[in-house]
């Protein structure tokens, strides 16, 4: 490996919908490739074809179909399915490339409102097609992620509300897909990373010794929540220390101007860190798989991608 690196990866925290990990010994292109692959190229199952047999609810068919598509389906066995467009076992859809569901709700009695939720989505595949039965709707939006409760603990995701005597009878086909096709197939809600240390940092010791009191306050106001003046000293605000905000070019420019006016050099008050030491990732899923599973799949997909191009270079 002539120009290879020896990267590190450390999962700090991992639960059903949430994960924290850090990546080191590599560069931004790798961090970004992992992020992009997790978001757009990890396949999941999602409802893709909806047949409405009866709908007397207040919502029109297309609106309900769209809502159904966005309901996450538990997809950790997605590799057992083929993509619909290259399934060799069928023309349209079958148990090897899709999962069938139905929703049949009739609001009877005097109850004012009957909520139709993800819990009303019932799998209609045969008993023998047991792999299809693992693809179940997720009933929460990660509310229980912290307690580690499984997704049945939630109230279900609301699809429509029926009033007395309204009826819904819908057949759904869930297919395998990736988010490059439609965002409903993305397993991820969020994947983001923070570069540590930040590319640009202010040298606060230098600024503090250089600037007059009013210049410090000027800079604190100008920085819009990045800096504060405590006991006559400039300090970073909490959001910056927690990595929620960064240093804007405007702030660095202003700091440079004030430093020049005070007889310093702009180059003394900024520190540039060209080599990121590590990337702190935060990843959250919709519940269709654990973030750890999505990361493992993303790395496998990325590797296959690289190997595939390598095989075609002549």
């Amino acid at each position: 490996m002539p120009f290879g690196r020896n990267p590190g990866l450390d999962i700090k925290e991992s639960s059903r919908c949430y994960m924290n990990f850090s990546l080191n010994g590599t560069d931004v292109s790798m961090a970004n490739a992992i992020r992009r692959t997790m978001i757009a190229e990890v396949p999941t199952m999602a409802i893709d074809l909806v047949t409405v047999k009866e709908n007397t609810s207040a919502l029109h068919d297309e609106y309900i179909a769209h809502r159904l598509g966005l309901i996450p389906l538990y997809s950790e066995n997605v590799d057992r399915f083929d993509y619909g467009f290259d399934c060799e076992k069928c023309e349209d859809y079958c148990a090897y490339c899709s999962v069938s569901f139905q929703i049949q709700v009739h609001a009877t009695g005097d109850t004012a409102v009957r909520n139709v939720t993800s819990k009303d989505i019932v799998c209609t595949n045969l008993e023998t097609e047991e792999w299809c039965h693992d693809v179940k709707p997720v009933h929460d939006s990660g509310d229980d992620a912290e307690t580690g409760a499984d997704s049945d603990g939630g109230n279900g995701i609301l699809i429509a509300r029926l009033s007395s005597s309204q009826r819904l009878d819908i057949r759904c086909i869930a297919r395998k897909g990736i988010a490059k096709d439609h965002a409903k197939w993305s397993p991820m809600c969020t994947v983001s990373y923070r570069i540590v240390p930040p590319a640009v940092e202010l040298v606060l010791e230098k600024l503090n010794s250089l600037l007059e009191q009013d210049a410090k306050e000027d800079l604190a106001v100008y920085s819009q929540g990045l800096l504060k003046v405590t006991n006559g000293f400039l300090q970073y605000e909490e959001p910056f220390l927690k990595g929620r905000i960064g240093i804007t070019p405007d702030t660095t420019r202003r700091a440079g101007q004030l430093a020049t006016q005070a007889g310093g050099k702009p180059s003394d008050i900024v520190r540039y860190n060209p080599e990121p030491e590590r990337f702190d990732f935060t990843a959250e899923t919709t519940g269709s798989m654990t973030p750890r599973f999505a990361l493992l799949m993303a790395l496998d997909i990325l590797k296959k991608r690289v190997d595939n191009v390598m095989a075609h270079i002549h």
Partner: protein
Amino acid sequence: MTNAPENYEAWVLPDGVEKVSYVPDTKIENCGVFRLEREDHTLANLLRMQLIRDPDVLFVGYKHPHPLDHHIELRVQTSTNTRAGKYMPPEAVRVALMDLSAEISRLAELARRSRPS
């Protein structure tokens, strides 16, 4: 019903299309453009940054010509006097891909082994 292209055409290689094609530059020695079909910034930027690490690569850049085109163009120029002898762009790209593949394997292994404390 419509002539809209299928969504999957953005990421599935159509029949009869070459995954990678290489066109050598007619004016500059050891230089050429790779056309990577059905690839995007994910791989292109990864490859570009890896090729920059190679001291015998003089130039590397890529473009994604249009949002409705699903390929990228990677231009690579290598040094004409290397210690190892002849070193053409396809060789440089192959080396870069090998390094990337090894790095990703290592990351996958670490992710598999890593358990939150």
